[in-house]
């Protein structure tokens, strides 16, 4: 099952089905008076075709395993979402500090001092954006 070519095909098929079935819910219309559902339906059908070809083709080519590293992407996404949540409810400076400390777990080494320096540097950059370039950042 861990075959990159097969998974890719299935992934494409899944996307085409999501959009294709969604498109059926809108008015399709006729070719001389196309409704909002016609174009997405056509594109999804084409995509479905490509997905099916990819699945079939994966039976004939060599298998390549997928290297999906859940840990790093999870850490990065958590730090992004944390940044957004903390900036929304507290302020952005706290958000920056959280993001730097959380994201650093994904690196190959962890150093509190380095994180503090990076966070301080980024806060200075954010202040410069706010004061000099007129960005509307909720820093504090």
């Amino acid at each position: 099952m861990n075959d990159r070519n097969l998974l890719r095909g299935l992934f494409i098929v899944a996307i085409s089905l999501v959009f294709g079935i969604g498109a059926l819910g809108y008015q399709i219309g006729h070719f001389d008076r196309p409704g909002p559902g016609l174009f997405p339906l056509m594109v999804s059908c084409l995509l479905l075709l490509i997905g099916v070809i990819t699945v079939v083709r994966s039976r004939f080519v060599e298998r390549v395993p997928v290297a999906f590293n859940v840990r790093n992407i999870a850490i990065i996404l958590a730090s992004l979402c944390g940044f957004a949540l903390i900036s929304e409810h507290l302020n952005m400076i706290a958000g920056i500090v959280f993001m730097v400390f959380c994201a650093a777990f994904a690196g190959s080494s962890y150093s509190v001092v380095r994180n503090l320096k990076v966070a301080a540097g980024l806060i200075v950059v954010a202040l410069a954006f706010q004061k000099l370039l007129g960005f509307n950042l909720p820093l504090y």
Partner: protein
Amino acid sequence: MDVLHNLAFGFAHALTWQNLLFCAIGCTVGTLVGLLPGLGPLATISILLPLTYSIPTTGALIMLAGIYYGAQYGDSVSAITMKIPHASSIVACIDGYQMTLKGKTGLALFTAGVSSFIGGTVAIVVLSLFAPMLGEVAFLFGPADYCALMLVGFVCVSFVTTGSLLNGLAMCLIGVLLGQIGTDVNSGQQRFTMDFPFLAEGVGLISIALGCFGIAEITKNLDNKDERTPFNGEINLIPTWPEFKRIIPSALRGSVIGSFLGILPGGGPVIAQFAAYAVDKKVSKYKHEIGSGAIEGVAGQAAADEAAARTSFIPLMSIGIPENAVMALMMAAFIIKGIQPGPNMIAGHPELFWGLVASMWVGNCFLIVLNVPLVRYWLSVFKIPYAVLFPSILFFCCIGTFSVNNNLDDIFITAVFGFIGYAFLRLDLDPAPLMLGFILGPMLEENFRRALLISRGSFGIFFTRPISGVLLSVIGLFVLWQLAAFFWQARKANVARGLANIAPASLEG
């Protein structure tokens, strides 16, 4: 002489203090970010696009263009010194890095800088001559022709950037479908919004770009854990006269090849580099040295790279159809600024068009100063450890997403696309065609529906009009050729397997 007059007009706009400053900032920042590992022009532009929101139109576009070709330059520097294979500077890794291994880094950087300058200059001449001409042709295009042209673009980009027509086309179509999210302009129907109000206006371009290029790239680099060996920075830039003489012919060849390939749909820097390198390998006086660190191997491709980067503006500005993903992002930037690129742009906003052309030459001068005498200072960028770099890139992604609408919720969308982008990456799907599909999708639908309305529902219109007929038959031939190639390869593999099965049996016999 019209062209000279127009160029003078352009320089009058490009040489104001303000625009000079924007050009300089764009080139510098572009080079700087382009030097960083894993950040090619696409990622650089998408991260820096929000910075230009508060700048006047001409200045903003001059700055963006500067960021783009600055990033191209920066890429080749990191390719030569560190062999960091960026998507846009693969060829520079071959001979450029070989020269570094021989201790001729300075010479390689000098060659790349000077050749890029030559390439850029030739391309600007081509740009100012051909863009207005092509603009006249564009008036002949009807909706069906636009559809066909966009499809040609999809096929070419899919094939060129990913090497696999199937994967690339799938990404284009996924992009088109993502572009469908939001309100349908013809009927007012909300499509695929799942009743989320923030999706009514569609998914943000910046969220997709930063998710797929910024977040996914960072995670990929973290997965690889590649520790880079810091470059020692010992370089000697000044070449000898015979060395300098070897640069010129190769660079000129590269410029011509690059200028031509940059105009074609799906063309652009990547394919131009390969073509120029291949030509140099065939016709250069020193062809036996190419591959093992020859000046020609660096000069030709650097010139072609820079030339194609600039001439790829031609289809965007004269027809209004971007021919590759970077140009699609540029087009988005034009539209954000309220300018619709297309045949009317040159006539409607001459100060913008000619100002941009002139600024490219100004930018060229900035870049040669930045990249030849000052290049040793840039190399210290490589000393920044990735552990410091990646939180900073993440931060810029956040600020970039936020500043589009001053809305923190957009960061969640970016995170979602970061995850999707990472999945694409791991499934070996290149996100560049997705960007093109996403930006062209709404245009494709608009023109498709218009063409069907004109023809009263008959698909004949796509085949009977000369322009779209020719373009669609080109696509048909290409798909047939791909199919044939696949079956031929499969048969060859089968025959080989058959032989392998027979051989042991006959030995035993």
